[in-house]
């Protein structure tokens, strides 16, 4: 009976730990970010998806993947250009921080994984990652970057980016479904 109780407690603890660690990292303990740090995270997150797209354009021959990658490259470059224009206007210099460093470290691993694949395996890995990445970035923009922005124009830019990210996610899921058939 005692053993059973211990087993139940242990199982509950394991389940709780699993739940805690499955929640996106930034919502567990939202780091405090200044506007220069928010700008750095925003630019880094966009640049990472441009880099993923460049790998796709090098390695894929699938028309849907190539079209999606071209859209990601152009859209995220457009967002970066607007972010840079805004920080220049506000005389703010993006400041590197733990969140942007974590994004870069994770992206480095993903790029290594993508470069190790070819053909359909690459197409699947690329589009699967785009679905996961856009979900994570949408959560971070909505739950971390927008709440942490003090400047109204920076906050407005981030709010305007959300529909673009959600459309990218919808597009990625569509391509993912088509490729898996």
């Amino acid at each position: 009976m005692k053993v059973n109780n211990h087993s139940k407690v242990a199982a509950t603890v394991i389940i709780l730990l699993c739940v805690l660690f499955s929640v996106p990292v930034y919502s567990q303990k939202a780091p405090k970010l200044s506007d220069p740090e928010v700008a750095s995270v925003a630019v880094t997150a966009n640049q990472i998806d441009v880099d993923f797209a460049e790998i796709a354009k090098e390695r894929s021959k699938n028309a849907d993947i190539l079209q999606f990658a071209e859209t990601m490259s152009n859209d995220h470059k457009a967002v970066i250009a607007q972010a840079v224009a805004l920080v220049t206007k506000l005389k703010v210099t993006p400041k590197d921080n733990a969140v942007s460093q974590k994004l870069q470290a994770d992206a480095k691993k993903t790029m290594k994984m993508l470069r190790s694949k070819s053909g359909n395996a690459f197409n699947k890995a690329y589009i699967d990652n785009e679905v996961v990445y856009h979900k994570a970035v949408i959560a971070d923009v909505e739950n971390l970057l927008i709440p942490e922005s003090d400047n109204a124009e920076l906050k407005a830019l981030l709010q305007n980016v959300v529909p673009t990210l959600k459309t990218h996610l919808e597009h990625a899921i569509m391509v993912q479904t088509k490729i898996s058939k």
Partner: protein
Amino acid sequence: MPGHFNILKNVIYCFCFMFFIAGCKPSPEKEQEPKKAANKTYTVEIKGMKFQPAELAVRKGDTVVWVNKDIVAHDVTEEPGKAWSSSTLATGQSWSLIVTQSANYYCSIHVVMKGKLTME
């Protein structure tokens, strides 16, 4: 004789007046012709990754103007056959079409963005 001449003159005046009135009166065909509505111009804004309004009721000959007010480039392309398409519209650019038939359209850059023109 002058009296007869005056009567003849008055008769001619009467005929001339009657012909003038008849000429001014619209013919039965013209009366039955339906009044043609003036063509209209409608604006569709591309904003927040959506065509707004996404569905538009128009008449043949109306003009639809699409204006890109979004933060990224878009286009307007007939689907499924790509019978007509704008070129890429950067932020702030617009493109117009004179409608000749109902059509479904989409953004070929962001393929999940869709719109519809319905002929009334």
